[in-house]
């Protein structure tokens, strides 16, 4: 797995992949996975322990008495599926495959009756301990993530302080500069993504907003629809929204004489301009 994918969030409650527009939320029962989706599925697992836990919980297996043959069979199907599609397979998955096969074969060996009931000699003990410990931490991570967090559910308050009154000036390093730049970049990516999916909607939003305003005010001077401080993309969307409203004959633009202010009004109520 590359490092970027390692850090990027896969929202867990949402479909983890879309194939030909169809969302895939869980793995299909028969293990048929469309090739396009396989890689995404596998990247949603945090490693072999995570995959094993998924198989155990999906099949309602008892984590304290794991049927090794069945679990190993299912696990190997995944590993084979990955290999047959030449997906880069993290070494950890292969190591785990070896561990599973070893446990399975040790369980086939007859054990001396005297110690058969002793848990310590259960070949599965170490695997079960690791699975449970990982599951506990996985759960703890989810719980931690849900705690109200500064900057997300609430924000620390800070008012403006005149720099000249501060005796100590902030110190920065070249590294801080690079991190600030990385923030700008990654946000730019988010916004880009946002724009692609929301563009039409946001024109509609502005159209509604303008209409609402005209319902209250009858006449609005054109430039009042552009608050100072709006970003360029916002102003453009707003302008497109006005053009769209005119095109759909919802709004009238009028002017009493050349160079006089432009007024917008609802098409149905437009009668005379304010003096």
């Amino acid at each position, binding site marked *: 797995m590359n*490092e*970027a994918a390692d*850090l*990027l969030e896969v929202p867990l409650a949402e479909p983890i992949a879309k194939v030909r527009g169809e969302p895939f939320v869980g793995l299909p029962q028969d293990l048929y996975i469309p090739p396009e989706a396989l890689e995404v599925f596998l990247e949603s697992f945090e490693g072999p322990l995570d995959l094993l836990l998924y198989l155990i919980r999906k099949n309602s297996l008892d984590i304290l008495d794991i049927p090794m043959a069945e679990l190993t069979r299912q696990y190997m199907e995944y590993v084979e599926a990955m290999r047959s599609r030449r997906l880069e397979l993290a070494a950890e998955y292969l190591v785990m495959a070896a561990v599973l096969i070893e446990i399975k074969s040790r369980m086939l060996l007859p054990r001396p009756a005297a110690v058969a009931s002793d848990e310590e000699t259960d070949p599965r003990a170490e695997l079960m301990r690791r699975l449970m410990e990982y599951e506990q931490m996985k759960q703890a991570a989810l719980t931690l993530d849900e705690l109200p*967090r*500064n*900057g*997300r559910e609430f*924000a*620390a*308050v*800070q*008012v*403006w*302080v*005149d*720099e*000249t*009154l*501060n*005796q*100590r*000036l*902030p*110190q*920065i*390093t*070249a*590294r*801080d*500069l*690079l*991190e*600030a*730049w*990385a*923030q*700008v*970049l*990654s*946000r*730019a990516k988010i*916004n880009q993504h946002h724009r692609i999916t929301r563009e039409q909607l946001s024109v509609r939003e502005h159209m509604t*907003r303008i209409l*609402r*305003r005209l319902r*209250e005010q009858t006449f609005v001077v054109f430039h009042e629809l552009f*608050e*100072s*401080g*709006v*970003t*360029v*993309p916002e102003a453009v969307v707003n302008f497109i929204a006005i053009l769209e409203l005119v095109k759909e004959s919802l709004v009238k633009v009028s002017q009493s004489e050349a160079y006089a202010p432009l007024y917008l009004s609802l098409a149905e109520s437009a009668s005379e301009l304010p003096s």
Partner: protein
Amino acid sequence: MTLPETEIPAAKQLLEAALLSSPEAVPMAQLRKLFEPELAADTVRRLLESLQEDWQARAVELVQVASGWRFQTRPEAQEKIARMIPEKPPRYSRAVMETLAIIAYRQPVTRGDIEEIRGVAVSTPVLRTLEARGWIEVVGHREVPGRPALYGTTPLLLDDLNLRSLQELPPLAPLGEDVVLPEAS
């Protein structure tokens, strides 16, 4: 959109919280977005003026500056606050750091360029903070209508970062992919 009498206190509290949590001035257009449906600028202005009165006798005041509205400590209080020397050195806000990063890596840039890259307006105090620190300066003007100022970094910035030239700034490429965004701070 105007506001029923009963909703005024809650609206004022929301404006108060929004302004208190922003170290930089908040433009009117942004303040209006706090409300759903959006309030008219006039209505918001009246709420702000009423809030301003509420804070009149306090050590923090609500003021209107060129780029919007902000809370700030009164100078008399600031002198006393300076007595409690913080253990940690102060830090620049995200807006300041990001603006500096853009100027450093993309110079010469106009304010418009910076706004385009950040996706939000750049307030005058942000640029003034960096100018006062001696880290950026106007290096020319772009020959387009309005002749906007072009900003670049100064040798002092390099000195303060212990660098000998701009070439020694950390390279950009690998980090853009790796870094998980820290949350707004």
